[in-house]
C-alpha cells in the first residue's frame, strides 16, 4: 500500500508541476503581450492606468472610442475600459475593479444607447479572465456569474479547458509579441479594420424586440446609471453620456419612439446637474456612410477615428 500511495503521489506531483508550469508559462505570456485585452486587464488590476479620462461602454464603447485620439485632443490621459458584449452591470463592475487600484478619473465618457441597459447573466468572452482566475479581485467578480471559478484556481490547467488555442497563444507570447490585427488595443480601444457587412440577425432582433426594449424602465435605469458614477467620483468630476452615431438602417428602426423617453430623461438630468452632459450624436453624417461601419451596430477603425475626433472637439468645449 505504501508503494502505491508513493506511486500516486509521484504521479500527482509530476502532473502538478507540468500542469502548473504550462499554466504559468501561458498566463505570463498572455499578461505580457502588450496592446491586448488581457494586458489591459493586467494594467487595470495592477493600478497602472490612472487616466484623467475613462471611457466606458459595451462593444460600441470598446470598438468606437479611440482613447488615444481623444486624450491627445483633450490634452489629458485617456483610457477605454469598454466591455465587449457587456451590459451595464458588467460595465459598472469593470469600473469598480478599475477604481480599486487606480486613481479616480476626472472625466467619465459613458457610451449610451438602447441596448446599454441589457444586463448579462453570463460572462461574455470569458477567455479574457483566464490568466487572472487566481487574482482575488477578478475571481470574486467572475464567481458571481459562474460557480466553476470557485474551484478553477485550485486545479491547474482546467481554466484553459476547451481553449487550447489560448494556451498555445500564451506560450508563444513568451517568445513573440505579435498580435492579430483586430485583437490589438490602443489605450484600451480596439480598432476594427473591417469592411461593412450587414448584420441582418441584429436588425431582425430589433424588429422583433428581442432586446425587450419595451420592458425596460429607461427613466429609472438612466437615473441609477448617472448616480452610480457620481457616488464614486469626486465632486467636480464630469460625467458625459454620449450616444454615438447609429447606422442609417438602425436609425430608421430605433427612432424616434423607442429612444424618446431615454433622450428626454438624459436632457432633463443634464439641465439639473452642471457636472452631467449628454452629447447626442446618434444621427450624424457618419450614419449615412457604410464605409465607416463594419456592421450596422459598430463603426470600423476609420469611422471610430472620425467620430472620436468630432467627439473630442465637443468635449473640449464642455470642459473649457
Amino acid at each position, binding site marked *: 500500500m505504501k508503494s502505491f500511495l508513493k506511486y500516486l503521489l*509521484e504521479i500527482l506531483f509530476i502532473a502538478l508541476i507540468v500542469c502548473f508550469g*504550462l499554466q504559468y508559462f501561458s498566463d505570463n505570456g498572455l499578461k505580457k503581450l502588450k496592446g491586448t485585452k488581457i494586458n489591459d486587464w493586467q494594467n487595470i488590476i495592477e493600478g497602472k492606468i490612472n487616466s484623467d479620462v475613462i471611457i466606458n461602454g459595451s462593444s460600441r464603447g470598446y470598438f468606437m472610442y479611440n482613447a488615444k485620439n481623444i486624450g491627445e485632443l483633450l490634452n489629458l490621459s485617456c483610457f477605454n475600459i469598454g466591455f465587449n458584449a457587456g451590459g451595464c452591470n458588467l460595465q459598472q463592475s469593470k469600473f469598480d475593479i478599475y477604481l480599486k487600484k487606480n486613481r479616480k478619473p476626472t472625466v467619465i465618457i459613458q457610451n449610451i444607447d438602447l441596448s446599454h441597459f441589457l444586463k448579462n447573466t453570463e460572462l461574455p468572452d470569458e477567455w479574457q479572465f483566464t490568466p487572472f482566475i487566481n487574482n482575488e479581485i477578478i475571481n470574486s467578480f467572475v464567481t458571481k456569474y459562474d460557480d466553476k471559478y470557485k474551484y478553477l484556481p485550485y486545479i491547474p*490547467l482546467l481554466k*484553459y479547458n*476547451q481553449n487550447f488555442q489560448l494556451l498555445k497563444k500564451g506560450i508563444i507570447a513568451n517568445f513573440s509579441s505579435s498580435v492579430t490585427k483586430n485583437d490589438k488595443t490602443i489605450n484600451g480601444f480596439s480598432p476594427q479594420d473591417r469592411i461593412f457587412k450587414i448584420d441582418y440577425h441584429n436588425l431582425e432582433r430589433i424588429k422583433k424586440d428581442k432586446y425587450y426594449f419595451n420592458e425596460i424602465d429607461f427613466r429609472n435605469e438612466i437615473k441609477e446609471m448617472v448616480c452610480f458614477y457620481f457616488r464614486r467620483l469626486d465632486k467636480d468630476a464630469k460625467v458625459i453620456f454620449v450616444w454615438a452615431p447609429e447606422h442609417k438602417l438602425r436609425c430608421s428602426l430605433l427612432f424616434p419612439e423607442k429612444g424618446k423617453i431615454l433622450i428626454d430623461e438624459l436632457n432633463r438630468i443634464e439641465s439639473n446637474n452642471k457636472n452631467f452632459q449628454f452629447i447626442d450624436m446618434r444621427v450624424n453624417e457618419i450614419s449615412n456612410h457604410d464605409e465607416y461601419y463594419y456592421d450596422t451596430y459598430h463603426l470600423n477603425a476609420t469611422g471610430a477615428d472620425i467620430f472620436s475626433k468630432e467627439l473630442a472637439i465637443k468635449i473640449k468645449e464642455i470642459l473649457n
Partner: protein
Amino acid sequence: MFFNSLAFAIFLPIVFFLYWFVFNKTKSTQNALLIIASYYFYSCWDWRFLFLLVFSTFLDYFTGIQIEKSNSDRRRKFWFWLSISVNLGFLGIFKYYNFFASSFAEMFTSFGFKVSPFLLNVILPVGISFYTFHGLSYVIDIYYKRIKAEYNFIDYSLFVSYFPLLVAGPIERATHLLPQVKIKREFNFEKAKEGFSQIIWGLFKKVVIADTCAIYANAIFDHYNSMDSLSLILGTIYFAFQIYGDFSGYSDIALGVSKLFGIDLLRNFNYPYFSRDIAEFWRRWHISLSSWFRDYLYIPLGGSKGGLWMKIRNTFIIFIVSGFWHGANWTYLMWGFINAIYFLPLLLLRKNRNNTDEVDIKFRFSSLKTLLNILFTFGLTCFAWIFFRAENIFTAFNYIQRIFAFNIDFQNLKGQISFTTTFVLLYLVLLEWNNRKIECPLNGKLSKVKILAAIVLILLLGEFNIKNNFIYFQF
C-alpha cells in the same frame, strides 16, 4: 453518480481508504463495506430503484438455493422458470412494455382499427439490463449444474450489486466473480497501479474522445438534412468513436476501480476497431455481452452445429436479441439485423474464426490486405451505427439516402472538422495500436509519461461543461 463526476471523485477515495484501512480485517467486512458503498452509489440515481435491485437479488439468491436443493426435476424446473420469468418480466415491463403496446396499436391502426394503447408511466431503472443478466446467468449456471448455489447472502449480494459494474457492466459471471468475492482480498501494488492507469485511460476516452466527438456527431445527425455526403460519412465516424470512447471508457473505469479493490472484472473491449472482419469485431466489442449471448442463447439453441437453416436462424436470433437488449426501438433491431447479415457469410463459409491471431501490420504486401480489411470492417460497423444512433428507422434510411446522393460540399465539410478532434482521435488510434497487446495502453513502457499526457489532455480538452451521460446507462 457518474464515473466522471466530482461526486465520484470524492466517493472513490473514501471507499478505497475505508476498504483497505478500516474494513480490511476479514472478507466479510470487506464485502459488507462494498455492499453499503454499492447501494449508496446506486441510490444516488434514484433510491426507489434500490427496491428492485434488492428484490432481484433476493429472488435469484433464493431460487438458486431452491434449484440446488430440489430433488425432483419438476421442482428444479419450477424454481428455474420462476426466476427466469420474474427477471425477464421486470425487464419486459420496465423496458419493453411501452414499445410493444404502441407497436401493436400502430399495427392495428394500419389495418383500420383504432386502438389507444395503455402505456405505463415508468422510468427505466438504471442498469436493469445488466444486473438482470447477472442474476440470469447465475440461475442458469446452477440449473445446468455448472456452479453451486451461493448460500452466503452478503457474498451473493455483492456479486449482483458490486458498484463498478452495477449500472453498465461488464456483465459478470458467477464462475468468475463469486470466487473472488469469497476470499479476503490482499492489496496488490501492481494490480492497483494497473487499475489507476486504466481509470485515467477510461476517463480520457470518455471526456476527451466520446464527449468531443459527441458534439460533432450530434450536430451532424441532428441536422443531417442540411449536410453533404462527406459530412454525413464523417458524422458516422464521429459517432463510432463517440460510442467506443463512451462505453469502453466506462468499462475501463469500472475495471480500473475494481482492480483498486483487488477484484478483476471481465475484459469488455479488446481494441475492436482493429478487427479484420465482423466476427473478430464481435469477439472484441462488448465481450461480456457477446459471450453471454453465446453461452446462454446461441449454444443452447444449437449454435453452429446444426444444419444450414439452423445456423442462419441462430445467427439472426442472437444478433436481433442483442440489438433488442440495447433498447426498445426498431433502430436497435435493425442494427442487430444488419450485423447478422454481415456475420452470416463468414459463418457459412467457415471464415468466422479466421482472424483469431494478433493483428499486425508490417512493410509488406500482405499487410496492405490486413489494413484494407480493418478499414472495410470499420466502414461496415460505421454503417450499422447509423441505425444505432438515429432517432427512428426513417431517419436512418433518410440519412443513408443522403449519403448516397453523392452531394459534396467542401465548405460544409470544413465546418465539421476541428484540429483538436482530429488530433485526439489520431492520438487514441496510435496509442491503442502501439499498445494493442496489453489491456490498457497506458501500462507498459513509458507508463508514467503516457499517464501524464492523458491527465494533461483530460484537463485541457475534456468536455466538462456539457452533461453527457454514459450512453450505455440507458440500456
